[in-house]
Each structure stands twice: as C-alpha cells, then as structure tokens.
C-alpha cells in the first residue's frame, strides 16, 4: 500500500464527511408545535331570554403541561336554551377561532351530545350542513326537573363518510370528547 493511495482515501473520506455535513439538514431551526392548529378550548353559551349560562373546557397550553379546567354548567329547571359551541386555539395571539372552519367543513363533522340517565336534559340540533344533515354548532337544550349528571360532547371527524341525519357517533375519529358536569336547579 503506497502513500499515494492512502492520501487518496484520506482526501475522499474528509471530502465526503464535509459534503454530507454541509448537505444534511439543519436542526437548529425547529418548528413551533403551537403553529399548527390545536383546539385548546371548547366554550359553550346557553341563552334563554335574558338568562345567559357560559361554561368551558379550557387547556390554554395545549395537551400535556397544565391539566385542563372544566366548568360545571348550572341550568334552570323547565327552560329552553339556545346553545352555541365555540372552538378556540389559545396558543395563537390573538386567540384563533376554529368554529367557522368546522362550519365550512360541516359535511365532514358532527357533534354528539349524550347525557347521563339521571340528567333531565334533552338536546336537539338547530343547524344543518350543505346536505341537510345536522352539525351541532347550534342546538336547543330543554330542561325539565332538578337533577345532576353530565353531558358528553363529542365532535366526530367523518371525512366523506358522514351518515345522514341523525348521524352515527361510531363513525369517524374523535376530534373532541369532553365531559361537563351539569346541575339543573
């Protein structure tokens, strides 16, 4: 083995190391995980005449980190409420609302409301998507006698597979699943 060949190997080695390091991607400029769309809060507003009840699930720092805060909803007996849902991304400044996006993609989304048996609350859809199927951003809630329990609000993403009214909670993937304690008094 002569020195010439040695030198060649050395040069080739160094050249390839340098070129690969220059070519490899730079990790020092990371993505900000909060740049993408994240639903951090679900705000619910229930209006009956002059009576307004607001409650929310909020996790401003997103998944992980601090645990989310979940409000208890206190509703009046024998009342009909107009209920609207709002989806917020609080990792942005100012807060970004994703509600219009769900509305625009209404044919691919549906909210479901299920109540525990003890709770005397009924929910009916008050909005429709382009195919005349319910979305669930606007609803009518009717209470009867005093009771306690919880409402589970589920948002299903059903791209191209959304079943006709009244819909099917088993279809698609869960975007939101939040349980609110509810007291009717």
């Amino acid at each position: 083995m002569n020195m010439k060949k040695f030198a060649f190997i050395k040069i080739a080695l160094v050249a390839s190391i340098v070129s690969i390091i220059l070519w490899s991607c730079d990790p020092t400029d990371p993505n900000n995980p909060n740049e993408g769309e994240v639903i951090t809060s679900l705000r619910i507003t229930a209006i009956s005449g002059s009576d307004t009840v607001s409650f929310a699930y909020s996790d401003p720092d997103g998944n992980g980190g601090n645990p989310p805060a979940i409000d208890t909803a206190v509703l009046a007996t024998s009342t009909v409420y107009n209920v609207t849902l709002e989806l917020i991304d609080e990792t942005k400044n100012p807060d970004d609302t994703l509600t219009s996006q769900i509305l625009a993609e209404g044919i691919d989304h549906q909210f479901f409301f299920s109540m525990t048996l003890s709770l005397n609350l009924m929910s009916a859809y008050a909005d429709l998507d382009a195919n005349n199927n319910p979305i669930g951003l606007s609803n009518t809630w009717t209470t009867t006698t005093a009771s306690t329990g919880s409402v589970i609000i589920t948002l299903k993403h059903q791209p191209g597979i959304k079943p006709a009214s009244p819909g099917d909670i088993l279809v698609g993937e869960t975007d939101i699943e939040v349980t609110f304690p509810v007291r009717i008094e």
Partner: protein
Amino acid sequence: MHHLLLSISIQELSAQYFKNQFNQVALVRYIFLMIGLLGIAWSQTNCNLSISGKIVSDADRDKMCFADIVIKETGKGTAANEEGYYSFNNLCTGKYTLVCTHVGYFTQEITIELKENTIYDFYLKENEVELHGFTLEEHDDKVELSQTKYTMEGAHLDKNRGATLGESLKRITGMYTLNTGNSISKPVLHGMHSKRLLILNNGVRQEGQQWGQEHGPEIDAFVAKKITIVKGSSSVRYGSDAIAGVILVEPAAIIAPPGIRGDLYLSGNTNGFGGAGSLMLEGSFKKLSALSWRIQGSFRKSGDVATPGYYMANTAMEEYNFSTGLGYYKEKAGFELFFSMFHTKLGIFSASHFGNLTDLQNAINSPQPLIIRDFSYDIDRPYQDITHYMAKGKAYVKTGQKSKLEFTFAFQENRRKEFDSHGSLNEDPSLFFILQTVTGEVNWQHSFHKKLKGALGISGLYQTNRWDGFFFIPNFRNVNGGVYWYENLKLGHWDFEAGIRYDISSLQAYMYVNNVYQDPAFLYHNISANVGTIFHLNDHFTARANYGLAWRPPHISELYSNGLHHGSASYEIGDSTLLPERAHNVNLSANLNFSRFKLELTGYYYYIQDFIYLKPTLEPVLTIRGAFPGFQYTAGDVDIKGVDVDMDVLLTKRFVWSSKTSLLWAWNYTQKDFLINMPSYRFDNELSYQFKDTKTMKGPYISANLLVVTRQSMVPANSDYAAPPDAYFLVGLSAGVDFLIKKVQTISVSLTVANLLDTPYRDYLNRFRYFSNDMGRNVVLKLKIPLEFSSYKKLKKTK
C-alpha cells in the same frame, strides 16, 4: 519427465475406464481422449502451468480454510491455506478434473482445459443434511468472543425468511419480539430492545427512530446471508450502548464467480393472503475477477391479518426494498460500496385508536375488537410510511501478515411519516421525522504474536433530526466519538480477552416550549469494558465467561417526548433530568458438542443503574380529544437475569429433538417490584424427521413443534390497564426439501404451518393485546431458486 507424467495419468485413466465402464462407447471415448491427449502432448509441452484460486462458502462467502482439493487425473492433492487459497503448480497443458471437498458441504467437481495459468474459485454449497440447530463457529480473521453467539445462516435462515427481521429472529433462544399488531415486530433480547440492542446492518449501526416501541428495524431481511446474535454486553467492539447485545445482519461479501449468478426467493402465506419475493443477481468480470457487483430487490405485501374468528382491520402492509453493491477484493487491499433503500407502508390496527379511557376499558372488556371489517388489502389511516436509505463505503489494506486496516464510512437517512387516523384531509403526515446519520470507523486488526490478536479503532457519529407535523420529540444534533482497544490471547486450552472503550457524546435539542425557543445541551462521556475467557477442553466441551461494563446516554425521546403516540394510542412524557444508564453484565455458558447430542447452556445477569423505562402514569392524560393512557419515562436500578438452554438430541439416526428454553426474571430495586414489559418463560420444542436423500432430493425433513409461553405473573402491581394474558401453546408444522436438478441446480422448497390449531391467544409483549387476539393459522410456502447464467454455468457443465 513431462511425458512420464502424462503417461501415468493416462494409465490411471485407462485403468479406471476399463474397470468401470468397459463398453463400446467408453472405448470409443477413451480412444478419442487418448488421441486428444496425445495430440496435446505432441503439440505443446508446456508444463509450468498452474491452477489456483480460492475456496469460499457460497452461503456467506467465508473462506474455507483447509478444504481438500484433488486432481482426479493425477491423484495430486492439496488443502487450502489459512486464507482459503489453493494452488497446483508445474502442471502440463491438458484436461484436469478438480474435486473440492469440505465437511458439511457438497463436493464440487470442475473440469478445466488447461492451456495457460488458470484461476478458478470454488463456491461450495452447504450440505444442509445436518443438525440445523446452533453452530458455534470461529472466524479466522475475527477475534472470538467470550459471549455466547448464535448464528443463523444457510438453510436455517432460509427457513425463517420472508417475514420481518424480528420474526426471523424469534426462534433464537433468548430472543423475543415486541409486537405492535403483526406488521411491526421489534427484536427483544433478554427483555431489552430499542437502544439497548444494537443492530449492525452490513457493518453499520442501524440508525432509525429506534426509540419507539412500535418502530420496527428498517432492514430488508432478504439481504442477510447471515444473522448473528451476540448475547451480552458487547460495548467495546460495537458501541457503548450495546447493553443487551448485538444483532449482526450480514449480507454475503460481494465476491462473485465470473459470469452472472443469482438467487430468487418466493414465498406466499395464507394469513393476510400475502406474498414476498426477492431477486438477487451478482457477478464479476472475466478480465477483472476481483471486481464483483450485486443488485437486489425485494417486496412484501399482505392484506389484513386474520385472528381466529375475525380480521384485524387495517393491518395490511407493503414493503419494497432495493440494494446494490460493488466489491473489489484483493489479498492486499480492497473496497466495497453498498447502497440500500428500504420502504414500507404499514397499516395500524383501527381498533387500537380509541377516544378515551372509557373506550379503552370498553375495548379491553370486549371479547373482540370494536372495529371489524372484511378482509382488505387497503391501507387506510392510521398508517406509517417509512423510508430508510443507506450508503456505505468500506476499504481495507493489509498492513502485515496478520494485520489489516479497515475504513468504514456510511450515511443513513430515515424518513418516518406517521399518519394519524384523523389527520387533515390533505395528505400531510401527522408526524414526520427526518433523521440523518453519518458514521465512520477506522479499525486496525492486528496480531503482534501468533497467540495474541486484537483490534484498535476509533469511531464517530454525527446525527441530526428534524420533525414536522405534531410535536413528539424535538429537533436534535448528536455527535459521538469513541476509541476502543481489545486483545485476545490464546494459551493452550484457554482464550483470554480484554477490551476497553471510551466514548464521548454530545446532544443538543432545539425546540419551542410554550412559544419560547430553547436549546438545552448535554454532554456525556464514560468508559466501557469487557473481560472474558473461553475454555476449550476438547471438541466436545467449551465454556465461556464474560463480564461487560456498558453505558448508554438517555435518548432525546426519553428526555423530551411529549405527545400522543399515534401508533400506540398512548401519551408519552419525557424527563429531562434522566441520567445515563450504567450496566454490568455477567454471562456464563457451557457448550457440549457430541455427534448425537448438543447442548448450550447460558446464564446471564444484568445489573443496570438508572435503567430508563416507560412507566404507566395510571392517571390518564386528559386532552380535548379525550383521556389517553399516559406513560412517563422513569429511571430505576434494575436487574435482569435468566437462563437460555439450547439442546439438540439425535434420538435415532433420523429423529432429531430440538429444545429451546428461555427463562427470565427482572426486578426493579427502586420500585421494589417487578420490572414491567419483560417476556415470560418460553419453551420451544421441535421433533423433526429427516428422510433419506435420493438422487434428486437432498435433506427432506418434516417437523412438528410446540411452543409454550407461560403467563407473565411477575408484573408490577396496579401498573397496567389489563392483566397479562393467559399462557398459551401453539403447534406448528414444517417440511422442506432441496430438489437437485441436473446435479447443479438446487431448488429449496419449504412449507410451514404456524398456529396449526388456530388457537386464539394474546401475547404479553404485543401492544395490541388489549384489543385483539394474535394471528391465527398461517400456511407459508417458500421457494429458493439459485440462478446460474453464462460462463459460470458453462464452466460447470464442462464436467
């Protein structure tokens, strides 16, 4: 003198002819032959010719030292030297028949029309009619290890081919797999996997996103000609983090006979209605026989996997691989270039994606998955799409009689895309990692004295990671350097080995935490060591003892994971205060080797300080998408101990009983409890019957095996969402034969039936055991067809 030699050979020939085949045809042939030979003798009287070459094993291209080689015509014989080379000198022009024999290999004959100095290399094919159990072999050029080593090659490897690498290794005692459904299987050795079980693919550290429990090794199992498992810490030679051991996946060296030859593997399986195939072609050039090339491609495709009773929805997979290489080997120096691409798309079992803990409980309580669909080849969301590229260059220079300087340089890029089942409508992955790794090594194998050999080397690694999509692990840059030195001394019955290694590793992460840019840096350095001894009493008994000291810095995922792991529907949380792991490992083994009885007994003990593992948080992680089971990276002082027993018994001349037993116990001293996710006891027994060879059939066998896996009762209290599954036993059948066509062409056929009784079972180390039974009956048919073209064939046909 020349004439004398010729006449002797003719006399011999004629004696043979008259004795064996005295008929008219033979006589006519004989006369012609004599005339021909006389003619040659008259026309040319050059008797300074030589025939030389090397003798290598066709399966792994290992040189076959001391193979016997005889010239039929002259009766002159010789043996290949230590390097596998042979030569016959002072031959006259003429026709010579060379017969090459070696124990355990088919005898090869070749007729050469000698006119000028000729080089002919023998590629001996393994005679597979022997105990296809374990082989403990000693490499001539490599220092023997005092750890237990298990090599799978030739027919034994072919039998397990067509599956993923993890599945191919499962039959090795002490090996297990950590499965995510049936498409992802990660090799586990002595309860350890991922970063603790190093995989050396073609001499290069495999650098993929190995940290994930549902990230299988990105290796095409078809490329391997030989897979070796080194049990026990092997940090000095292979890297400080080889705590559990090393898996060496080795393709055959790129040394091919002149002309073109190849191998075609085909397999089909009934479960998943899938198939796999691989085509390899290789050859070398007549004018430049030291230069060989190889090109190989393979595919695997399978639909939804069936369990007894139902299909697992969205468990289809497909895989396409390609590799090519160029080798130039001379005695003094040589080089090898290699490029490979691995690509796979794996469906993730639909029912493993659930909304919250209630759903998880429902899924666990349900006797069958909550989502069941008809059989399909479609791969829907969620799925993984992974591409792994590797380019490698290797060169060696002989620096003396027994010393060699080796340079290895490799580049790898791993692109892992994970598509969440409910990602956006556009085709952006939910998780996307690009991991680029450059590795380099300079290794000097040397021998200062006949009885002392060793190696000295340096190695380096430069790695960057970038992510896109949802956050899971941060971007990082990792720079490693290591120096090692080991020596092996042979003294009579004893071999002593000792080695030491120093590594320094720098890790810097780059990320945003709550919109604030952070770039924490870590520096780790430490020493690894190995001492061991081998005692060879005689051919029948060998004992080994080894102590290894290894360490492993925490991986970025263990420090900074924070996110929903889509492949496993779990929320994983890192801990940036974790310290490097420190492992002490003792291995003791005894090997008995008799013609009718082989036994290998290995006992191992690992004590690992600050062992990092995923501990369930029990409190689920609540997200707006529901509650997910949480797992926190935690460290504890643990020990792992166990026994591996391998036994082959020749019950009668044709009945072989092979028995493999793995027992393992693990304890977490910090928690004062068992260690989670450790394999349970495993007993694998096989009875095979070897039929008599016929003219056209070599090594026909049938075998039945029974695998018993006990219930893992040694689990930490209240740490899991479901109790470990029950014990199970599986019955399997297999049969195989090599068809010999025209004495040259061999076609190997094998048929295996796994889970013959279609037993429903769940395995503790399958991450989908919460949701579904494991795979049901599967019938696999495999074919191996060696292909021989052009001059290689012609040379052989001249016989």
